[in-house]
């Protein structure tokens, strides 16, 4: 597919560094799927769909900064949705979100909530201000919070809240790789689904830029079960845009 022209209909400041951009187009994603967002003349970036018709973006570099300069009525080009998305299992599920990692988990929470699942969310961020989508998670279940600076909830990493993992039927995790690796080391791998971040070039499973060992994050993922990742390079190193190994 060629990029679809998506006009920005609304922009919401979620936290000081994170904004949600709503479009005039619904992409009907499975929670966890992503789109390639083309900021014309600048770059094209992978972004999870945080709503059927929206992405939620943390400003981290040139392209996300360019995105933050766009106004309502401006447009971007969007290809997707791509990837597999989360596999929703029955029972009492636990969501573990770090920073902007809450973006793909919030629609998952809402979909699981709508089908009557019991949901607990562990929500982490650097500071209280940066906690993302707290209300969306609270609307469908319990939320426990951790902040790096202790400004809200537990002081420290969200992984510290992960003591009773056994009682959940399935865990869903998205956040910095370091944090996800800690989760993987702490729980039964087959019970966790991780949404991974790798450098995405083509987005359609051909170039191989996004591979974690032989697995394509853009096509076979971005969601992988922990047991697939257990013996992989996940948590050890990733690739930069040249394909060089970079320690996580």
């Amino acid at each position, binding site marked *: 597919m060629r990029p679809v022209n998506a006009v920005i209909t609304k922009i919401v400041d979620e936290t000081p560094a994170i904004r949600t951009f709503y479009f005039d187009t619904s992409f009907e994603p499975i929670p966890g799927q992503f789109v390639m967002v083309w900021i014309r003349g600048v770059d094209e970036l992978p972004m999870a769909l945080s709503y059927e018709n929206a992405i939620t973006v943390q400003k981290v570099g040139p392209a996300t900064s360019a995105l933050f300069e766009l106004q309502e009525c401006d*447009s971007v080009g969007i290809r997707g949705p791509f990837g597999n998305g989360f596999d929703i299992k029955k029972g009492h599920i636990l969501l573990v979100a770090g920073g902007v990692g809450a973006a793909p988990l919030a629609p998952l929470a809402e979909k699981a909530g709508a089908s009557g699942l019991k949901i607990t969310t562990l929500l982490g961020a650097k500071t209280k201000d940066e906690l993302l989508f707290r209300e969306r998670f609270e609307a469908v279940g319990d939320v426990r919070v951790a902040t790096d600076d202790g400004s809200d909830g537990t002081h420290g990493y969200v992984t510290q809240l992960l003591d009773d993992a056994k009682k959940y039927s399935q865990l869903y995790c998205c956040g910095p790789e370091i944090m996800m690796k800690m989760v993987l080391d702490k729980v039964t791998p087959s019970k966790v689904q991780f949404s991974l971040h790798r450098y995405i070039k083509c987005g359609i499973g051909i170039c191989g830029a996004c591979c974690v060992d032989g697995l394509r994050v853009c096509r076979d993922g971005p969601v992988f079960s922990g047991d697939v990742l257990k013996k992989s390079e996940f948590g050890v190193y990733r690739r930069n845009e040249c394909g060089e*190994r970079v320690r996580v």
Partner: protein
Amino acid sequence: MLSLTLTGLKLKNPLMLAAGIMGTTGGSLKRIAENGAGAVVTKSIGLEPKGGHSNPSMVEVDCGYLNAMGLPNPSYKNFQGEIDLAKEAGIPVIASIFGGCSLDFSEIAGALRADAFELNVSCPHAHGFGAEIGTDPELVEDITRSVKKATQVPVWVKLTPNVTNIKDIGLAAQRGGADAVVAINTVRGMAIDVESGYPILGNKFGGLSGRAIKPVAIKCVYDLYEALDIPVIGVGGISDYRDVIEFMMAGAQAVEIGSAVGNNINIFNDISSCMESFLEEKEWTLEDIHGMVHRV
């Protein structure tokens, strides 16, 4: 029944992974190897690490894809480990390499260990005037010769179709001592976003791959088979076993598969088994179909 010897390499089947597809990491090459490929070709590797062009670097168009990755690669200095890892799968691993002149090429070929080298002389980064070096017969001959000196393993030269006469370039490679030619690399192309007037690719234009280019590739293979004494390896738009048969009839001794891997990572196994049934039913061998169109 699909096995063959290609420039001295033993292949269990004539289906290879094309350069630039799932070819940057040992892990991804190994996965393709385990999914039935007869051999794998790596991403084109150059002198220094390169990040490539800015995104969008690939877009789907009618019946194919346009890409302008810009040859992202970790440099040969960081690549031997990936090749070694890929080798664990037990099939030949061919290193695709590129450079701006014969010195670049021979430096890389002299330093890397692989089962063969495929010279990507169709990159738009040549020293000089920025033209593709693969369009200049003298340069191609020169580069081929210097790589042949730098290595003992077979050397294949991958040709661009974006020339007036591909036979001239193929003959130059043959004169330079190439063990085989590979045809074709992508076809020059461009796509524009009509909503905005922007070229879709970050690099503005790129190379067309996929089903759209198969007739172009078949013609190139046909012409090269007529003109050359060395084997021709076909690539461009293969997505099922009939395409492979078509390439072999045109004169390809083996083929490479690129874009179609995206939608079917198991394509090598799938095509192998279909090819076997087809050949059995027709009572044909690989030899029978190789170059058949030139004999009917």
